[in-house]
């Protein structure tokens, strides 16, 4: 009887994860709908820009400076690497790698938001959300992305807290890590599209 129980379909299939989990699919679908939202947002930017027809940015607003955004890019894009490293670590049951990787990403993400805040401080002196549609677009797009970074950082911080408690993640249980990682990679990649649209395209 015990041999039968140990070799039955159920026993054999519950031990190791097989196939994609529902959580994975749920997160991927969520990211897909979020990505569509960003596509609509960036599409609206180009629509308003080309329908406007005049010089862009309008109203004598200067073209966006590139130094800070490029530094922000250099901070945010590599921030996915520690997440990947952490996720691989916990898959092998190495909890220290999970903790160290998440902490590194947290630092990079907070740096990004600090840089964005300093950029806003400068920009707000030149134009605001209510100056014209360009200003509205600039602050909506970058602000909405900043909000996503904040949500991502909350998830990372939450994972870090759970992993510090112990008894949360291990080689067999790391679904939440993977799902949060998918979201973080998404937030990260979207920034590349925003960099192109908001900062580089006015110079083309």
């Amino acid at each position, binding site marked *: 009887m015990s041999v039968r129980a140990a070799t*039955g*379909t*159920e026993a054999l*299939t*519950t031990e190791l*994860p*097989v*196939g*994609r*989990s*529902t959580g994975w*699919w*749920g997160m991927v*679908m*969520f990211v*897909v*709908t*979020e990505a*569509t*939202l960003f*596509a*609509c*947002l960036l599409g*609206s930017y180009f*629509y*308003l820009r080309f*329908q*406007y027809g*005049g010089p862009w940015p*309008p*109203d004598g607003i200067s073209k966006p400076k590139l130094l800070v955004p490029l530094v922000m890019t250099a901070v945010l894009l590599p921030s996915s690497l520690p997440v990947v490293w952490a996720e691989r670590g916990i898959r*092998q*049951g*190495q*909890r220290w790698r999970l903790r160290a990787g998440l902490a590194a990403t947290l630092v990079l993400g907070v740096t990004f938001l600090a840089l964005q805040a300093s950029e806003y401080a400068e920009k707000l002196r030149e134009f605001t*959300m*209510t*100056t*014209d*549609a*360009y*200003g*509205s*677009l600039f602050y*909506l797009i970058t602000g909405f992305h900043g909000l996503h970074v904040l949500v991502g950082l*909350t998830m990372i911080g*939450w994972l870090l807290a*759970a992993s510090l*408690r*112990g*008894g*949360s*993640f*291990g*080689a*067999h*249980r790391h679904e*939440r890590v993977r799902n949060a990682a998918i979201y973080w990679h998404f937030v990260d990649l979207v920034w590349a599209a925003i960099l192109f649209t908001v900062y580089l395209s006015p110079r083309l």
Partner: protein
Amino acid sequence: MSTTAAAPAPGASREDLAALEERWGERPSLRSWFGTVDHKRIGRRYLVTAGFFFILAGLSALAMRTQLARPESRLLSPQEYNQLFTMHGTAMIFLFATPMLFGFGNFLVPLMIGSRDMAFPKLNALGYWVFLFAGLFMWASLPFGAAPNGGWFAYVPLTERTNTPGLHMDVYSLGLLFLGIATTAGSINFIVTALKLRAPGMSLNRVPLFVWAIVATAFMVIFALPALNLDNAMLFLDRRFGTHFFDPGAAGNVLLWQHLFWIFGHPDVYIIVMPALGIVSAVLPAFTRRGVVGYPLIVFAIVAISIISFGVWVHHMFATGLPRLSYSFFSAASTIITIPSGIQIFAWLATMALGRVVLKVPMLFLIGFVVTFVLGGFTGTMFALTAFDQQVTDSYFVVAHFHYVLIGGAVFPMLAGIYYWLPKITGRMYHEGLGRWAFWLVFAGMHVTFFPMHLYGLFGMPRRVYTYRSEPGWDGWNLVSTAGSYLLAIGLLLVLIGVLHAIRRGRPAPPDPWGADSLEWSTDSPPKPYNFPVLPRVHSLHPTWDEASRESMGAGATRDRILADGRRTLLTSELDGSRERVVEMPEASLQPLVLALAMLVFFTAMLVAWYPVAAVAAVAVAATIAVWLWPPRRPERELGVQP
């Protein structure tokens, strides 16, 4: 509620059944009422709540028809009329049609695919509460005279703050953003459920058409709803915080609203109609005594429609002065999309022609659906021709068209579905005679109301006018429409009476009163909390008609499909439906309700501009989610941790 049980499954022992009841059953209490995650209870709530909003929106329509019964009537003020027609449209589209079909989906999808619940039961509960609160949020504005009043598609610049002051359009934009959370969550849940929770053996080519339709709908929501959400966010920012997205005086553009709205709006037509067409495909086999003709063609049509529907939005904007070339493109796309729609119609007609038609009430509604929907489709293809469209745009002809499409294409199938699944949902049979009366009154009332609108639309009567003068000769036809609307209301009242009568007096329903083909009919009416004592093993497209699939739940039952020692169900592979593993399902919880309440506080605070309260509510939302997803503490050995 007394019910007749399915033949006791030889596969599941008495102890198994007791264990399943222990794990899945919910003792009646206030806590379990607010905390339930059972997809059948949630599905029933969706149906009842959407029905309630339908009644409110229907009464708004009756008030409008009464006002329009004769020329220069003073029953309603123009301001009241604007709010009524806006709430009528908005509620019918967003608070009735989609939630009603999601209700059917919630109740039926797990049963049809042979699972014990949805993929994310707690998210499912959240979706319901958010839908309920968003609906109440929007309707609550009406008694204050602050209801949305800019039409259901809320065109700028009319809806900008300078032209529509007051809270009206803020209620609209925030209400729809709030509701969008429920619709998105529900859609993701349907997709994942259909991909991962199908019974073993249910490969993609054995998935019921209704499930295909729900999944295609869910994909359309995933890709279409973000456009509406962005639009509403911009409208709210423009109105409340002085941004200039839609302000041509400051580099904005009014047409941006229309583009984003219809990029959502045209797929939304199919988001509403598609699951209803799925109901048609689900109901038809039972009343023609054969499978639907051309299963692969219908699946193709469903997928094709859901893709092409994203390429036709500009046909709502033929009167806006866009470049000629874009008219040609969108005109062509709008013509092409009639082909897959036609495939479905002809497949159903062939099914009726080749099968043996059983004329019960659900079948009557299906025939009514074909007649009405095809008429609506005809006028639809007329709009695909730009020249004609520009003549009749914003006239009552358009109103006639989309009521034929939406009542014909969505409400009739829903009514067929209500009669068809009532025995499964309530465990009681409906009264056939009462149902027939209801059908004929609804059918006649619908056509008497809306057919004349084609005529006075062509005679030039514009839509959305609170009154008219007698000179153009519209008054006679309007009176006919008004009389028809009362007839329709009586018919719908009879449907309601029929449902209540069935619940109170109906005779108990057997597990399969129709001799139907899909899996929900192979379990009790109403199903036990765990749906199936033995999860089926599916061998064909019509599992309840095929011996091997039926036997898999009886004599052929195996331990690995009973899963009585825990609250568990099976995951299978996405394409082949081959067994992957057993998963533990969540228990009832109050977290979904708490989260939805926090969101309600957030949106209400945003509406009345109490931003600190909104900030606190946002933190509460984040905290509830953090607690909800907090990982349970497990022993190190189970986790697999290296020192």
